[in-house]
């Protein structure tokens, strides 16, 4: 298994509070991704990174920001959580432009 961890694994928070999810890899892979998974929608890309301090938006980026200050860490922040952001969040990594993505264990976030 690729060395990817996510923290926390479960979180319950209230509407309006900030939340940060962490993805940590030990593979030294260049590319990192954040997805959310909701019933009926499959996995959707939120943000991705192609290097330290290099990030860009995916298809569902509104309400989310990211940061990557080290190769191994990619943080996803919900500045002010809303109930529509209740979801399972997956981090993924890939080594280069032609290899598959490997997924972390996921974080289940509930916004009440």
């Amino acid at each position, binding site marked *: 298994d690729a060395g990817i961890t996510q923290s926390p694994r479960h979180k319950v928070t209230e509407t309006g509070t900030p939340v940060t999810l962490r993805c940590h890899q030990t593979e030294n892979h260049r590319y990192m991704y954040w997805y959310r998974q909701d019933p009926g929608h499959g996995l959707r890309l939120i943000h991705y990174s192609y290097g330290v301090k290099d990030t860009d938006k995916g298809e569902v980026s509104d309400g989310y920001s990211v940061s990557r200050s080290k190769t191994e860490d990619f943080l996803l922040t919900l500045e002010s959580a809303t109930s529509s952001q209740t979801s399972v969040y997956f981090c993924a990594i890939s080594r280069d432009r032609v290899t598959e993505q490997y997924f972390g264990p*996921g974080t289940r976030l509930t916004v009440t």
Partner: protein
Amino acid sequence: EDKVVQSPLSLVVHEGDTVTLNCSYEVTNFRSLLWYKQEKKAPTFLFMLTSSGIEKKSGRLSSILDKKELFSILNITATQTGDSAVYLCAVEAARIQGAQKLVFGQGTRLTINP
């Protein structure tokens, strides 16, 4: 808008049966198609397909891509209860600075009954 559609959405079969899962796509700039298996946790990689007509095989699983008709199939022969999972199809629809932008289908939930 790039789109990936999987069918059926749900399938229940008996152990030992053979199943075929379908994935069709409409993307502007196709690069590759990937299959993943998801049990109650993270998706795990099965296959990556880039060329038409070349079958990829791993044990009882195989997959093939048709870039002319814009679809792929995933076959599982002699199914076992451990094959029960959601099977996800994804298409690499763009590559930005080398990062792959994947578009996923909704998944097919496969249940194998003993």
